[in-house]
């Protein structure tokens, strides 16, 4: 069971990274136009975000 001592911190760390990424995306206005961003991936041109 000592492996738990390693696995639990690892799982928490990975989850924490996910949480941090979510909070970062929230702060950098990435939820302002969800429908538009979903459609934009279909465009040939403009393959990088503007603004």
């Amino acid at each position, binding site marked *: 069971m000592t492996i738990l001592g390693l696995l639990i911190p690892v799982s*928490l760390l990975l989850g924490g990274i996910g*949480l941090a990424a979510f909070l970062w995306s929230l702060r950098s206005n990435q939820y302002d136009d*969800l429908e538009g961003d979903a*459609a934009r991936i279909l*465009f040939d041109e403009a393959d990088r975000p*503007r603004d």
Partner: protein
Amino acid sequence: MRDTGPVADDTLAQAGCCPTGLAARLAADRMGAAGAARWVRPATQDAVALDLMAPGINCAACMSAIETGVSNLPGVVSARVNLSMRRVRVLFDPARVTADAILTRMAALGYEARPFDARAMAEIDRDAVGRDLLARLGVAGFAMMNVMLLSVAVWSGAEAATRDMMHWISGLIALPAIAFAGVPFFRSALGALRGGRVNMDVPISLAVVLAVGVSVYETAHSGEHAYFDAGISLVFFLLIGRYLDHRTRAVARSAAAELTALSARAATVIGPDGSRAPVAIEDLATGALVEVLPGERIPADGRIEWGASDLDRSMVTGETTPEPVAPGAAVHAGMLNLSGPLHLRVGATGEATLLAEIARMIEAAERGKTRYDRWADKASRQYVWGVHVMSCAAFGGWMWATGGDVYRSVMIAAAVLIITCPCALGLAVPAVHAVAGGRLFRRGIFLKDGAVLERLAEVRMVVFDKTGTLTEGRPALVAAPAAGDPVWPLAAALAGASRHPLAQALAEAARARGIVPAALDAVTEVPGAGVEGRLGAMRLRLGRADWVGAAGGDATAVWGRAGDGAPTAFAFEDRLREDAAQTVAWLKARGLRVALFSGDAEGPVARAAAAAGIADARARMTPAAKLAALEALARDGVKVLMVGDGINDAPSLAAAHASMSPVAASDVSRAAAGLVFTGQRLGPVRFAIETARAARARAVENFAFSALYNVVAVPVALFGFVTPLIAALSMSGSSIVVTLNALRIRRGEG
């Protein structure tokens, strides 16, 4: 429950992507001189920004068409579409391109675009509360996942020291997460308790706090059952409901604010020295002299000082026949100046202005209407009491049965609170409203608050206004000489020189018949009369019957006369919206009563009613008469949906059980109506009723499901059989079921 069949093809076709043909032409017609420069604001060093609202944007192809189309204009730095909000932000170099040119390009692309004041919207767009809720939701989600992972180990049989360790780690994750994520519930519960009330958040907070408290005690005593996972998932699911509820309200609020931002307009004030300056309409002082050019609306009630013209009164009274005006005439705000420039002395009418009178009637109508109690709120109030009584009973009962085993009794009471989980309840209605609101928004229908949906589902009768609502509010040629008649090229040439709506409709009809306008030697417009031209020695006239020298009839008509020849009549009528008859037939098929209340004369009203298939048509109704008729219906218990656009409809819109306005309506009507729809068709009325009924059906089902769930789960909890595993499963299961059920509203959408 199956009262909402799939949406018929015709309404789907209307929502279909990207306006083409007719829609594009209509959009172009509506634009005209806009003076959009007023809405431009500085953005970067060498570019300015213009924010546009374009309700017609609805797919990826629209985005790319607009972004490329507008960016191609020389001088435009960038054009960025926000598809969720149906808005476009254009950055451009003011030295190289004008705001009006951008609007013209949008119209050419086929999109009706209106500039609005982005600064007024900034507060709503930033949406601090929404972000705060999302951040808490993220934290709760993270904690729930991790606690669940650890719980799986416990459920699969971890024992002794391992189980204790799992519990301790769960606690370490769950406690701070709940302390952060649960704040919205704790705050609202405290607020309610302080005010001596009980709301949904009280049992929620109690359940969370009890679950965590009991679990800490269990963990410290190496106990078997810890409810950290139940506590945090309760918070997670309820936050989803809270967030959806917030979104629905935020979207409704922003729709209302956008409509307000749209209606801010300027009037041109003439100074004592003859200078012209734009002044916001709200700031117009009594006694100011205002210039009103042809094509503009009268900005305020007043008296004409100078000039001669015709006024289109349809927005104010519902009458379609233009009225000639001369100096001294009293005019009302909202009338459209048709043919000549006018100078207007504001507020010189002395007696009460029409708008003030309308505002008084709206206020009285709103005061008279009983406050609407949303049935979802009523249901949850009952529920809250039930939950408290039940868990108290559980605590008391177990204390008595076990002879005072406090620990056991608290555990059971906590389990009852957790299992009766208002999760499903907290999600049931917000999820339904969010899905229904989103569905309406995608179809260009703006909801101004959530209760409107519930009211709309209850209506039993629909009352339409005629001019601009049932009809397009634009004249169309109905009787004219045959296309080969020699009068046509002359009439087309004269009509093309005027901005009068009848002349424009005539010119358009000539184009549609493939008639080439004749080349005339001279053309002059005579305000209030018509257009006069000269071809060689022959005098040509197109205009009012008496001016041309003809005997005018009752119908709206323009008369043409070449030299001393016999006058020819071109008769016009305000055409019904394309799908008006279809919509009325659908409403009648659904058992709804349909009526037409108009301020126009008997003749046009009877013709429109016959064409639309409405039997109950009333003509020459003043705003007060419309209001009185609606109040009489309300007294008989008939719940009415009022659909109207004019200033004269505003009091009835405020008084009706539910109300809708087209987006082209007068500002007061848009403000008074609960729903505002875009587009040239009447289909949105049907679509909104369908959606509201579907939403109501789904909400009732969700409540029924929650009740059924509790009937099964509560006895299990009361008898102490609930383990953390059962609590976690039932809670997530019921939440997912109600959410999926809410999503069924979208059935039939692509």
